[in-house]
């Protein structure tokens, strides 16, 4: 545990505010006031404990968001029941901010698009990739549904102040090399346990140049490092992104110059090739250029998930796909991260472009990413995916092999029918 009154990291600053303390240090247990609580289908499991606790009302209805995303529209009776439980609960305890079928999207994207998380916030959600919202300069962490019941009742939760792993990035991403490649590269170094219980703070000139969507991608996958949260300090881009949509006042804070970092990793992205995470772990990362030489046949390509299915990602893929067809031996699924992105794709002619090339363009949902809805693969199949996990069984059978990569590389794989370098399509 840090002692004394030394400088604080970005996460420490936010947690000090959330706990009403002037100073906190890593290792300290605090009670943090929650600025935003988000539930997806797993929130159905929040309802019973909420009632068992004897809770009658939610602490603040304007700080609770429900966004269903895993099975939209419901694909099984079980999923329909989860949705039903949530709708009933929302009516019962008066939760008006419900993003239901037709107005839906992946929960993290909904929070981002609608300005639900702002700089300085402490946000929690019943999904592990809640870390994505750290890109707003907030502490955003995943919790389970029982814990969410306590948050809904009390508006706070205990947290151990995390130590901070700083990832300092310099250099310029080359053509065809994107934020996903950067976070995969970092995962190769940090590994899946390297940031367990920790806060990951992205800093450096490369990070400052990243757009908000790119920052969402790199914060999103700090979950795969084991991190409690992953943050980028707010700047003009953050404020501009939120200017017209912020749901509550921003209270940006910044790391002190003399903050204590448990560890700092320096990454120079000059000359870095695209990266790919091979089965069966997101930290099994290799340069795409090496993997391409193995001519790995791809049965399914998936452009989707909270990590990479924003309009920028779909445009990035379209730039490669234009003038090509999906390989006859490959199925290609595209699932935008939200309904508004879907509409944007419609307006820009992107749905037409993808479907004419032979892809299936679905409505917004978590889709193939988690192996519980659509886009399941067979045991001996391979999927090239822009998503975030490639554990055994992630897309269904435990033998299924998933390669994680950028949206552009996913499209390149769909065209070639094997893992391919998107830069060859420039």
């Amino acid at each position, binding site marked *: 545990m840090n002692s004394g009154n030394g400088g604080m990291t970005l996460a420490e600053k936010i947690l000090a505010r959330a706990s009403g303390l002037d100073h906190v240090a890593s290792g300290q247990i605090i009670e943090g006031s929650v600025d935003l609580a988000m539930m997806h289908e797993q929130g159905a499991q929040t309802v019973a404990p909420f009632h068992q*606790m004897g809770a009658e009302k939610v602490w603040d209805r304007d700080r609770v968001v429900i966004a269903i995303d895993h099975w939209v529209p419901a694909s099984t009776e*079980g999923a329909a029941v989860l949705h039903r439980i949530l709708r009933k609960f929302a009516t019962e305890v008066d939760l008006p901010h419900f993003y239901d079928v037709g107005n839906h999207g992946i929960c993290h994207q909904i929070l981002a698009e609608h300005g639900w998380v702002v700089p300085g916030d402490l946000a929690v959600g019943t999904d592990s990739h809640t870390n994505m919202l750290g890109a707003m300069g907030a502490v955003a962490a995943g919790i389970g549904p029982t814990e969410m019941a306590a948050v809904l009742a009390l508006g706070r939760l205990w947290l151990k102040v995390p130590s901070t792993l700083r990832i300092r990035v310099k250099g310029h991403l080359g053509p065809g090399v994107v934020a996903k490649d950067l976070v995969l590269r970092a995962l190769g170094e940090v590994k899946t346990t390297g940031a*367990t219980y920790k806060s990951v703070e992205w800093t450096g000139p490369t990070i400052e140049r990243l757009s908000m969507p790119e920052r969402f991608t790199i914060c999103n996958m700090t979950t795969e490092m084991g991190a409690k949260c992953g943050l980028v300090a707010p700047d003009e881009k953050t404020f501009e992104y939120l200017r017209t949509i912020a749901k509550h006042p921003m209270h940006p804070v910044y790391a002190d110059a003399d903050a204590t970092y448990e560890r700092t990793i320096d990454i120079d992205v000059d000359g870095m090739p695209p990266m790919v995470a091979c089965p069966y772990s997101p930290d099994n990362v290799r340069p795409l250029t090496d993997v391409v030489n193995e001519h790995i046949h791809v049965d399914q390509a998936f452009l989707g998930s909270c990590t990479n299915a924003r309009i920028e990602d779909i445009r990035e893929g379209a730039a490669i796909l234009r003038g090509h067809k999906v390989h006859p031996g490959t199925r290609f699924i595209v699932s935008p991260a939200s309904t508004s992105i879907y509409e944007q794709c419609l307006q820009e002619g992107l749905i037409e472009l993808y479907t004419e090339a032979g892809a299936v363009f679905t409505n917004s949902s978590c889709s193939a990413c*988690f192996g519980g809805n659509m886009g399941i693969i067979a045991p001996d199949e391979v999927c090239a995916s822009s998503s975030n996990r490639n*554990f055994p*069984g*992630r897309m269904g059978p435990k033998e299924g092999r998933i390669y994680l990569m950028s949206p552009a590389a996913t499209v390149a794989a769909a065209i070639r029918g094997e893992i391919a370098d998107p830069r060859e399509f420039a």
Partner: protein
Amino acid sequence: MKDLIEGRVWTLGRDMDTDQIISGKYLTIIDPQELKKHVLEIGLPEFAAGARPGDILIADENFGSGSSREHAPAALKAAGIGAIVADSFARIFYRNSINLGIPTIEARGVRALFEMGDTARIEMRAGRITNLRTNRSITFPPIPHHLLDLLEAGGLVEKVKVELAQRKAAAGTPRA
């Protein structure tokens, strides 16, 4: 919470993620009794049929990594697991497991101490775990007070229930 926990051991490797504990296709099931039929289906297929109440899971590093699904510890609890001990845990699983009242203990080096089928004895407050077959033991750091409180209460639901009842009682007390 019992101070002394004894049980038959199931061992597991490292990075036993939540997809391997309860895979995505079962996430619409919320009845723990149903879920337990599929627990560890990918990670340790013989477990669901063979588990007995009071059994103890001993895992290597990063147990429960991946998703926030509470289905994973809920299914293990329904299977009657007496404790989960690992070299290290992923953070959401750790919180979820403690919130459900499962003794969840981080003990560096524990996996190497046990083989499948051994008997483990855990002394919660003393912070010691012993293999009763080999008589070898290791110590683990004391479980923090706020977590012991949670386990003593029987989990988060019980703890918040008491807090809300007290709050209600205080609000209902007329001022003197």
